Structure formats: structure tokens, C-alpha cells
């Protein structure tokens, strides 16, 4: 597996001996290329510190980080040439227009002079702000500024995009647009590292995820792997929808070897099993009397709240 980001025993300590705060405590993280990697954790868990180290804004106390093959501590300029960052709590020059801001940043990104304005306008169009290109940033709402933040990350053609809490402060419609943009960029082969404290965001767009808490990476892997490992411990859940007014016989299901629990409410039956009995259940549902009363059979993935609780040791 080719990696875009790889950290090894990354430690970051703030303050002196008396005021010491361990923001990162031995983080080993692997972000595969062309993935949408969700770094999930509550506020203060070390996400921003980790991202800041990756782009060379902070130096690790110990350990190492490699981004696109470059050492984050030594080759940070090379990394920033290939990586776009949307930092948390960023700001723009409010007295300048959106276009002026982007053209200035494109200059620093090394975009050739004849392409700066074009790229800036393209980026504004991508985030739906082209019609506000000549408006001063001071007139922008928080959501518009956030979109402008995404636009500045699109100025160069980065291999890796890092978004730190990208949907904070934007409305649901804007957040949905952002997620579409992430999917589109991922389809173009770009790697996206997304830090968030919103669980649903991870589930909606990420192909891979990691959970960080108190500076420690609790788990990481593909979203499927994370689902599977939770299911292996907490069981596999299936939902059977039956036609309204039908009486669902449960005896045969109950007699399956690994079934642990069956609950029934209205026209919905939930089966919890220790092992994956999906194919067995499906075969059963195609037989009489089930085939005439069952509308659907779907495996239920664990929710991200469940996954988070599971990995942080809260059951």
C-alpha cells in the first residue's frame, strides 16, 4: 500500500517541565494514497497539532513524520509545495477582495503569473463564490469565508489536501457541497486528510479513518475494517422489514447457531448475531413462509457513535 502520510511514534509536548502538556503521545498513523482519511477526535485531542506537524508549522518533540515521501521536519517547504492546507481558525486579508486574496496566495504558491487570476477564478467557481470575486472579504459571512478557505487550498494542484475542521461554521447545504467537492477531488486521485470532531462526517465521505483521543491514536484503518472489527465483538445486526399486518415467525431464525438476540417492533425485526449470518438469513427469507411477508433484509452497520464508544473503551 502506497502511503501519502506516515508517522512513527510522534510525540509533541507543549510548555516547560511545570506546565507540560502532552498533545501527541506516540502517534503511528498511515494515510493511504488516494484515500479520504478522516481523523476523528473530540476537541483538544491533538488533531490540529498532528496536522501542524505534517506541514512543518510545528516540530515534533520526538518521532518522525513523512508526507509524500518528505520528512516533515526537514523538507517542510517541499511538502507545502505539494500539499494544500485549510487550517483551523484561519483568516483572510479583510480589506482585500476575495480575488485579490487568492491571487496573492497563488503568487506565494508559485503559480505562474499568467495563470494566477485564472486559477483564482476557477477556485472561486468551484466553491460557488465566483460572483463575489470582487467583493471585500470583510463583507463575507462565516460560511463564505470557509468556502474561500477551501478555494485557497485549490489554487495549486496538490497531491494531498489537508482540511482541519472544514465544515465548522457552515450551513448544512454548504457542508453537503463541501462533501461533494471532497468526493470529486478524491475521484481525481487526490488524497484527502480530513480532521473533524463530527462523527457523521467520517461516515459520510471517508474511505479510511482514525480515532484520536488525548494525543493517542485509538484505531485506524479502512472504514470497512473498522466496521468489521466492531461487528466481530459487538455482533452482526440485520434488519428485516415485513409487510404491514404480517406475522413474522421467528422460531427458525432463533434456532440459527450464532443468533444472540431478536427484537421486534411494528413491521421491523432486528437480528443480532455473533457471526456473519447474512447469506443464511437471505436463503431463509427466499423460502416459505418468509418470501411472501418479507419486504427487505439489510445488514445494519454500526453507527460511528458506536464505533467511537467501542474504541475509546466506553463499550
Amino acid at each position, binding site marked *: 500500500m502506497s502511503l501519502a502520510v506516515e508517522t512513527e511514534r510522534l510525540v509533541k509536548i507543549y510548555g516547560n517541565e511545570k506546565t507540560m502538556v502532552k498533545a501527541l503521545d506516540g502517534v503511528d498513523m498511515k494515510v493511504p494514497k488516494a484515500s479520504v482519511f478522516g481523523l476523528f477526535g473530540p476537541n483538544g485531542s491533538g488533531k490540529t497539532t498532528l496536522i501542524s506537524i505534517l506541514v512543518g508549522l*510545528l516540530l515534533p518533540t520526538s518521532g518522525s513524520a513523512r508526507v509524500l515521501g518528505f520528512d516533515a521536519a526537514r523538507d517542510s517547504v517541499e511538502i507545502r509545495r505539494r500539499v494544500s492546507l485549510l*487550517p483551523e481558525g*484561519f483568516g483572510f486579508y479583510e480589506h482585500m477582495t476575495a480575488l485579490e486574496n487568492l491571487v496573492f496566495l497563488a503568487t*506565494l*504558491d508559485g503559480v505562474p503569473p499568467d495563470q494566477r487570476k485564472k486559477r483564482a477564478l476557477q477556485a472561486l467557481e468551484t466553491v460557488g463564490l465566483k460572483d463575489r470575486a470582487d467583493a471585500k472579504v470583510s463583507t463575507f459571512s462565516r460560511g463564505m469565508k470557509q468556502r474561500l478557505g477551501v478555494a485557497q487550498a485549490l489554487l495549486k494542484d496538490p497531491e494531498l489536501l489537508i482540511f482541519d475542521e472544514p465544515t465548522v461554521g457552515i450551513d448544512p447545504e454548504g457542508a453537503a457541497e463541501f462533501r461533494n467537492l471532497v468526493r470529486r477531488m478524491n475521484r481525481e486521485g487526490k488524497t484527502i486528510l480530513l480532521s473533524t470532531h463530527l462523527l457523521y462526517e467520517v461516515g459520510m465521505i471517508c474511505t479510511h479513518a482514525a480515532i484520536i483521543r488525548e494525543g493517542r491514536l485509538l484505531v485506524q484503518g479502512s472504514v470497512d475494517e473498522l466496521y468489521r472489527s466492531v461487528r466481530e465483538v459487538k455482533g452482526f445486526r440485520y434488519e428485516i422489514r415485513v409487510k404491514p399486518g404480517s406475522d413474522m415467525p421467528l422460531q427458525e431464525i432463533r434456532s440459527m447457531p450464532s443468533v444472540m438476540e431478536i427484537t421486534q417492533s411494528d413491521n421491523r425485526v432486528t437480528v443480532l448475531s455473533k457471526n456473519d449470518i447474512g447469506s443464511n438469513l437471505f436463503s431463509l427469507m427466499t423460502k416459505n413462509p418468509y418470501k411472501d411477508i418479507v419486504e427487505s433484509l439489510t445488514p445494519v452497520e454500526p453507527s460511528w457513535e458506536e464505533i467511537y464508544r467501542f474504541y475509546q473503551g466506553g463499550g
Partner: protein
Amino acid sequence: MLKNALSIARKEFTDTITSKRLWVLIGIFLLFSIASTYSTSFGFIMGGRQAARPMVQIASAIATAMTYMAPLLGIALAFDAVSGERERGTLRILLSRPIYREDVINGKIMSALATIGLAIILSSLASVSVSILLHNISVTIDDISRICLFAVFSAVLSFAYYALSLFISTFSNKSSHSLVISIGIWIFLAFILSIMSSFIATAVLGPPPERAVAVFNMSRRQFGNFTTPGSVMLQESEEYLNYMRKVSEISSAIQAFSINYHYTQITNSLFGFAAGPLEFRQRESTMTSISTVLSTRLIDIIVLIVFPIVFLTASYMVFTRRQEK
């Protein structure tokens, strides 16, 4: 590296010269210097005399205004140079580009040098031109040379305060803190230190001796048929003069810590004030040549140049080593 620094400098310079802050400061300076020159030329008229070098006297009046305005200009340009970017969150966006941290500082310094140069030249030119027009004064090549040198030293003084304030700004998280500290240091160096130095000198030397002694002039003069009688004059005693000399030596030694003191020493020499404290404010009848001024004030000039270098170096060290989350 230079390309990025120049891009930042260009943006900074555009921001500064279009900001109200700069033009308000230049406006205040012009008003202040025009008022000073007017009062100087008013002094000529009231005294019923024409000064030997009126332009130099007017320029020295402008220098008084510059002593206050140049540091304020430097502080105004620097107090939020880094802390402002940090406060607004723009520093994060800047540092996420493929640039070195030095580029940010270099760009800001380049822009400040251009702005200070422009502001000092504009202010000096405007004040001198207005004075020439108002008072119909003729100007010599030597006058122009002295005014040019004065503008250069004023720019260095302004830049010294820029460097000091930039240093404070690099470790401040809030521009308001940076401004208060910078202004506080300026007030200390420009006003408090000179008052303190006199207090310390008199505290060290004790109370002054008797100031005046009576001198009897027994000689008589013959004016035709009339002979003047002898007279009694009061003259400052030798002890008192020695005491004052020591006071000024101690005071100067303490004030040597202030860059304003060195600047004043240079401009005083440049505009014909004798350097010695006792003769202070007594204009020499023949002005010292520019080359002599430069050689006798070499230490002051060196201090004026070294001061910003020290603080710029410190700013580089703090900014490039400070980690921005």
C-alpha cells in the same frame, strides 16, 4: 526566497500606503513641523534679525518634531506586523504556503524600509518646501546636504523603533499588547530616562554649590568727557560649573542607553548646536563642517545603526523558532 519576500513586501507596501494610519501620522508630523518652523521664523521677526543660516535653523525645528514622529512612525508600522497576522489568522494561511518563515519577515522589513523612506522624505520635503515658500528663505548646497543627512538619520531612528516594535510583535499574541509595550519603551527612552538621569546625577553628586559669585570690575572707561564707574557682576562660580559638568557627564552616560539621545546628538551637531551640555542651545557662529560632524558623532551614528540590527536579529530568531500551531 527573494521572490516570495518581494511578493509579501509588495502587498505590505500597498496596504501601508493606502492605510489611513500612515497618512494621519504624516499629516500630524507636517502640522507639527510647520508650526515649529513658523515659530522659529517668528522668532527672527520678533528679534528684528535674520539668522545667518535660516534654513538650517528651520530644519533644526523640524528635527525637534522628527524626534517624536520618527519613532511613532516606526512603531505604527511594526506593532501589528506579526501579532496582527497571528490575531487575524492570516499567518496560518501564509505559513501554509511553500515559503520560508524568513520570507515573511524579509517582506515586512523591505516594505517598512520603503515606507519609512517615503514618509520621511515626503515629510521633510513638504516641511522644508512650505518653510521656503512661507518665509522666502534662500537655501545653499550645504543646507540641502545637511537636510538630506538629517532625513537619512531620521529614517534610521524610525527604522530602529520599527525593529524594536517588530521584535515585540513577533512574540505577542495580541497587537494591543505589542502597541502598549512599544509605546511604553518609547516614552521611557524619550522622556523618562532623561528625567531619571538628572535625578540620578544629582543624587550621586549631592546638592549643587553656590551658583553665583560677585565679580568686581574696577576698570573705568573714558567716553569723551564722561568716565564710567567700576561695576559689580554676578558670575557662575567655578565650583558650580564643575558640578554642572559632572551632572551632565553622568546624565549623558545614563542617556547613552537611549537611541533618542544619540539621534539628538547627531542632529544637534548637524544643525550647529555645540555638543557640550553647558553650551547647549547656543548656536555656534560658524557651523561645523559635515565631515567633522560625521567624524565627531561616529559613535552616535554606530549606535543608531547597531540598535535596529540587534532587534532585527532578535526578531528573526524569535519568529523563525516560534512554532505556530
